[in-house]
């Protein structure tokens, strides 16, 4: 005799397809769903008609829900519904909020881009104003700048340069594509009232350390200054 094919739905018992689902499963479902805390078998049994195999019913309910978006789990001997572990991503909402960089941060970024590798003292020198640590921190958070090394000079200050994320954000192929003196003048961004000898460097973000740079000690900037790796590199 050919075996009869049976359509098996997750909420149906294969052996007794036509049979009514026991009422205690409905009762357990409702109690476990509504309860503000996980429930133990004893308190569940107290609400159920006498003679019901509570443990057996819970195991069956657990099987029924095993493949669902919500699972019946036992925590510390008590039962409760929980979102399936593989769906936890559904329950988090990730939003992107656009923030505008402050004027000071943009100015600092511009100096770093053109004059890299550059230390904070040098940025201040070029800007003619004190650069707050905050500006550099914000720029590190954007992932657009990165600490490159340490200048071989008293105090061994950190040198900063731009990252790949900087290039991709500003749509640049290479940092050397930033407009030079003549282009800045031509576009009217710089006017003619410039002292003789005024120059705009041709920037380079070559990761190779310069002669006056020492490498950073490993891990020395991991104290929250440097954004986590997956953030710095992303677009």
């Amino acid at each position: 005799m050919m075996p009869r094919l049976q359509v098996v739905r997750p909420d149906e018992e294969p052996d007794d397809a036509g049979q009514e689902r026991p009422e205690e499963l409905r009762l357990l479902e409702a109690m476990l769903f509504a309860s503000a805390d996980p429930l133990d078998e004893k308190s569940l049994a107290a609400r159920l008609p006498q003679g019901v195999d509570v443990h057996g019913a819970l195991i069956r309910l657990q099987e029924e829900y095993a493949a669902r978006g919500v699972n019946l789990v036992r925590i510390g001997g008590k039962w409760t519904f929980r979102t399936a572990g593989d769906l936890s991503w559904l329950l988090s909402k990730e939003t992107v909020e656009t923030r505008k960089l402050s004027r000071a941060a943009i100015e600092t970024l511009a100096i770093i881009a053109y004059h890299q590798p550059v230390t904070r003292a040098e940025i201040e020198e070029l800007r003619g104003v004190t650069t707050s640590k905050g500006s550099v921190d914000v720029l590190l958070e954007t992932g657009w700048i990165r600490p490159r090394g340490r200048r071989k000079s008293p105090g061994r200050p950190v040198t900063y340069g731009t990252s790949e994320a900087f290039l991709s954000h500003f749509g640049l192929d290479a940092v050397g594509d930033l407009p030079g003196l003549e282009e800045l003048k031509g576009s009217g961004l710089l006017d003619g009232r410039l002292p003789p000898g005024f120059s705009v460097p041709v920037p380079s973000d070559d990761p190779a350390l310069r002669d006056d740079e020492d490498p950073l000690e490993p891990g020395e900037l991991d104290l929250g200054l440097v954004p986590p790796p997956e953030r710095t590199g992303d677009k």
Partner: protein
Amino acid sequence: MTSPEDNKFEADLLPERAAGEPALVVDVEGFEGPLDLLLALARQQKVDLAKISILALADQYLAFIEEARKLRLELAADYLVMAAWLAYLKSRLLLPDADAPEGQSAEDMAIALALRLKRLEAIRGVAERLFGRPQLDREVFARGQPEPIAHIKHPQWSATLYDLLSAYAQQRQKTALAHVRLAKRTVWSLAEAREALERLIGRTPDWTRLDEYLISFVVEPSLAPTVFASSFASSLELVREGVMEMHQHAPFAPLYVRKRRVTENEAADSGGVAAPSEGRE
């Protein structure tokens, strides 16, 4: 135009009450106002509200009020207003208005009252049905342990290339015009040198070779002249202030420095001449 009933009613509105008698403010046995009372009386007639006799209802209401009055119950004003109105309506219904064309006819008023009663009865019916529904947290329940949605915010910084370039150009322009000093600064400032020397003499009370100490700062050979020059100038200043002592055996011999010690003869010397006897140079 007043009916005898009306007169009687108004005359008796203020029942005489002995001074010490307690006044009971009664919501007439729990009725929610005169309309509610009328509705209850209408139900006693056990007929459809559409077919109810407003005249009979008015009679019942007035009789009820009269009864309450006899029991010296203090009636809420609403009930008395309704009683007055019903008495008026009754008189109009009994005496068809020949010479009162103004306003509603008595029949219209009766129909309006019946409609009000019907509307109240209808709303009570649906209120009962509404509250007969399963209610949240009484008959039905939502999830007892909702799992909150975690909100993760990712900041995205915005800045355009134009922002960047104009920021660069503007500040370069500004500083270039403000102080035209283009040479890259490679000097060790006097303040820096002084700070380093103070740290040096603070660390050890003994004579220390200045150049050996300084060498630790001179990583970049090109910086050596400025470090030495600034340090020497600063040390002269420190000696002049009487903070430091300096010692040199011979011209071009190494310089030794140490923190100045207070000696007895100096304690007597009130002139404040800074350089001690062994501190030449």
